[in-house]
C-alpha cells in the first residue's frame, strides 16, 4: 500500500471537512444569511403592504434618516429598552450571583433546589405573561389583592394601568423568570473554579471580601461576560411577555423596541421602514456581541501577558 503524503492527507482532510460542513453551511445561508440579506435590502426600500404606490423601490437611506431624525417613538422605545435591559439584567445578575454563592457555600445537595429554581425559566414566555397578568390584574389579581391588603398598592391603583408601576412590574417579572438562569450558569462556573488560588490567598492572609474581589471575580470574568451577554441580548429582544402583559401600553409606557418593530411591520405593514427598525435592533445586538468578544479577548491577552 502506498503511503499517503502529508500534503495529500491535508487535502483529504480539507475535502472531508468541507463535505461535512456543507449541510450546516447551506442551512446557515438559507435560514440566516438569506433572510438577513433580505431584511437589509428591504430596509433600503419603500415596501409597504398598505399603500398601493409603495412596491419596494430603492430609496437609499431614507428609512434610516426618518428613523434617526423624525421618529420620536423609535427613540423613546430605544431608551426604554435600554433602561429595561440595564435594570432587569443588572438585578438578575446581582441576585443570581448572590444566590449561586449561597448555594455553592451552604447547600450540599443542590439537585432538588436547582430543579425548583429552574421552573420559572422553563416556562414559555407567553405562559409567564399570562400567569402574571392574572396575578397582577387590577380587579381580581391575587398578588394585586395582597399588595393592597398590606398597603403597598392603593385601593384605586392597578399595576398595568399605572404608568409609574408598569415598567417596574415588567422588570420584576423578568427578574423572577431569569434570575435562576444566572444562578445556574454562575453556579456551574463556581463549581469549576480551581481551589489553589483561594488556598494561596488564604495563606497570604486575604479576607473573604478581598478573595471575592481579587480572586473570585477575575476568575469568573468569562462566565460573567457570557451570562451578561446572553441575558443582555435576550432582554433587548424581549417581546412575548410584555406584549401579553400590556401590549406596550398604557399609551407607550411599556413599548419596547421589539414591540415597536412588530407594530410597524405587522400592524402598519410598513415593511421597508420596519426592516430599518429591525436592523437597528440587530445593530445593537452586534455591539453587545462585540463587547463580549472584547471581554474574552481582554481576558486571553491578560493570560498571555501573565504567561
Amino acid at each position, binding site marked *: 500500500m502506498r503511503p499517503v503524503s502529508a500534503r495529500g492527507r491535508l487535502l483529504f482532510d480539507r475535502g472531508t471537512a468541507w463535505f461535512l460542513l456543507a449541510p450546516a453551511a447551506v442551512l446557515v445561508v438559507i435560514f440566516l444569511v438569506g433572510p438577513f440579506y433580505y431584511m437589509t435590502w428591504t430596509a433600503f426600500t419603500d415596501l*409597504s*403592504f*398598505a*399603500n*398601493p404606490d409603495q412596491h419596494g423601490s430603492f430609496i437609499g437611506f431614507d428609512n434610516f434618516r426618518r428613523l434617526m431624525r423624525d421618529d420620536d417613538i423609535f427613540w423613546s422605545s430605544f431608551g426604554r429598552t435600554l433602561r429595561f435591559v440595564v435594570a432587569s439584567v443588572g438585578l438578575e445578575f446581582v441576585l443570581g450571583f448572590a444566590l449561586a454563592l449561597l448555594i455553592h457555600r451552604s447547600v450540599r445537595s443542590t439537585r432538588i433546589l436547582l430543579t425548583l429554581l429552574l421552573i420559572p425559566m422553563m416556562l414559555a414566555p407567553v405562559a409567564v405573561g399570562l400567569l402574571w397578568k392574572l396575578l397582577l*390584574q*387590577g*380587579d381580581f389579581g391575587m398578588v394585586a389583592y395582597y399588595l393592597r391588603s398590606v398597603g403597598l398598592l392603593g*385601593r*384605586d*391603583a*392597578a399595576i*398595568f*394601568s399605572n*404608568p409609574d408601576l408598569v415598567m417596574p412590574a415588567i422588570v420584576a417579572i423578568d427578574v423572577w423568570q431569569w434570575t435562576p438562569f444566572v444562578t445556574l450558569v454562575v453556579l456551574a462556573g463556581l463549581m469549576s473554579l480551581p481551589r489553589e488560588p483561594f488556598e494561596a490567598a488564604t495563606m497570604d492572609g486575604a479576607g473573604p471580601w478581598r478573595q471575592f474581589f481579587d480572586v473570585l471575580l477575575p476568575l469568573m470574568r468569562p462566565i460573567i461576560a457570557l451570562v451578561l451577554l446572553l441575558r443582555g441580548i435576550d432582554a433587548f429582544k424581549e417581546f412575548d411577555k410584555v406584549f401579553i402583559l*400590556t*401590549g*406596550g*401600553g*398604557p*399609551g*407607550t*409606557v411599556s413599548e419596547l423596541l421589539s414591540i415597536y418593530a412588530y*407594530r410597524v411591520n*405587522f*400592524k*402598519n*405593514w*410598513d415593511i421597508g421602514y420596519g426592516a430599518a427598525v429591525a436592523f437597528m435592533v440587530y445593530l445593537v445586538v452586534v455591539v453587545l456581541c462585540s463587547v463580549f468578544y472584547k471581554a474574552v479577548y481582554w481576558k486571553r491577552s491578560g493570560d498571555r501577558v501573565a504567561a
Partner: protein
Amino acid sequence: MGRIDGWLRGLAIGVLLWQVPQSHAWTLEEAAKPYKGVTLRTIGESLPPLEAMKAMAPEFTKRTGIKVEIEMYEHSEAVNKVMLDLNSKRARYDFILQPHRELGKFVANKHLQAIDRFLDDPKLRDPSFDPAKVLYPGLWKEISWYQGKVYGFPFTALTMYAWYRADLLNDPKERAGFKAKYGYELQPARDWKQYRDLAEWFTRPDQGFYGTALQGKRHEALWYEWINFLYSFGGDVLDVKAGSECGPVIVNSPEAIESLEYYKSLVKFSPPDTLNYFWDDVMALMQQGKVFELIMWNDATYAVAEDKEASTVAGKMAFDLVPQGNGGKVGQVEGWSYLVPASAKNQAAAYLFIQWMMAGQRTPRCLCRQGSPEARLCQGVDADQRSGQAEGHAAAVGRDDRHPRARDLHVPGGSEDRQGRARHVGEGHLQAPGQVRAAQVSGQVTDAWERHCGR
C-alpha cells in the same frame, strides 16, 4: 289536415311555453353544478355570527356538493392572516370576512374582486336575490362599497350604544338619592353632562362598583370607543363625505379636543385597571355586575343582557343611543363584509355561497337576539324591550336619518394606524393635566392622518 296542423302547432307552442320557463328557472343546484367537489375556505372573527355560518354551511354542501371550511380567529389575527395571504398571493381563501377599515387598503392594492361581475352573471345571480331590498342600503354602501364600486355584502352590522343597568335606574332609593344630589330625575343620560353625573353617582370603589369603564388599552377598541365621543361632540377626523376620501384633517378641532378632555374625565369613574381594558374586559365587567353604564358594541348584547348562564345582569339592562352632544345623537356604523380576493381560486363558487347566505332567511334567532349584528332586517325580536338599542342600530345602518352616523374611515394606510392613534389617545389618558394636553394629542393624530393622506 289544416285542423290537425293547427292542433299540432298549438301543442308545440304549449310545450315550448312550458319548456322555456323550465330551462331558465334559476336553481342553486344547477348553478353550482360546475363547482361540485370544490372546497371553499374562508376566515373571520371567532364570534357567534361566524359560528352560525359554520353551523349552516353543511346545508349548502348538501345542496351543492361544495364544501365550506371556516377558519375562526381573534379579531386582529383574522385581519393579519388575511393581509399576509393576500400579499403572498397564496390564495388560501376563496372569500374573506373582514372589517370595514380594511376595504380601502385591499381595493387600492388590487386585492379584491368587485362583485358586480357576479351580480351581472345570470348563471350565478339568483334572480330572487335583490341586495338593495334585503340589505340596509346605507350600511351596505358604507362598509362594502369603495369609490362607487361594490366589493361585497355586509356580514355583520355593528354599532356601539349606551348600556345601562335598568334595575338601578328604577331603584327608588337610588332615584331619591340621585335627585337630592343632582336636582333632576335619575334616567338614561340625555347629554354628556348627565352621563358623567351618572358615572359619578354610581362610582363606589368600596363596594367594587364603578360608574363606567373605559376601553383604555392600547388597542383598536380605544379608537372605536373614542370616536363615539368625537362625533357626538361635533368633531370628525377628516372633513369628507365618504370614508374613502382623504380631505382636510380636522381631528384637532376644538370639538375633538373637548371630546378627548371629556373622555379623559371619565377615567376617575372607571375601575383602576381601565387603561388595560378592551371590549372583552368591559363586557366581562358588565356581566359581573360591576359597572353601571358603558358604551359598548351591539354584538355583545346577548352575552350580557340575556344569557343568564354567563351574566349576572341578564334581564336588568337598558340601552340607548350615545348621549347627545353638539354633534347630535350619533350611531356608529361599523361591520364586517364578505369579500372575494382577486387571487381566489374558486370565486364563482364563493359567490354562490355568499349569495346563499345573504338571500335566504338564514338569520338564526340567536343572532337577532344579540343586538341585530346582521346586516339584514332582523326586527321584531324583543324590540319593545330594547327600543334604545333598536334605535341605535337603525341610526348606525342608516335606516333612521334623524341621527348622524359616526363612521370610521377606510382610506388606504389610514386603517393601519388605529393602534397608533389609540396610542395618542391613550397618552392623553395617562398624562396628568398640564403635561400632555388633549390638544397635543389631537395634534399628533393630525400628523398621523396627514401622512396617511400623503401630505
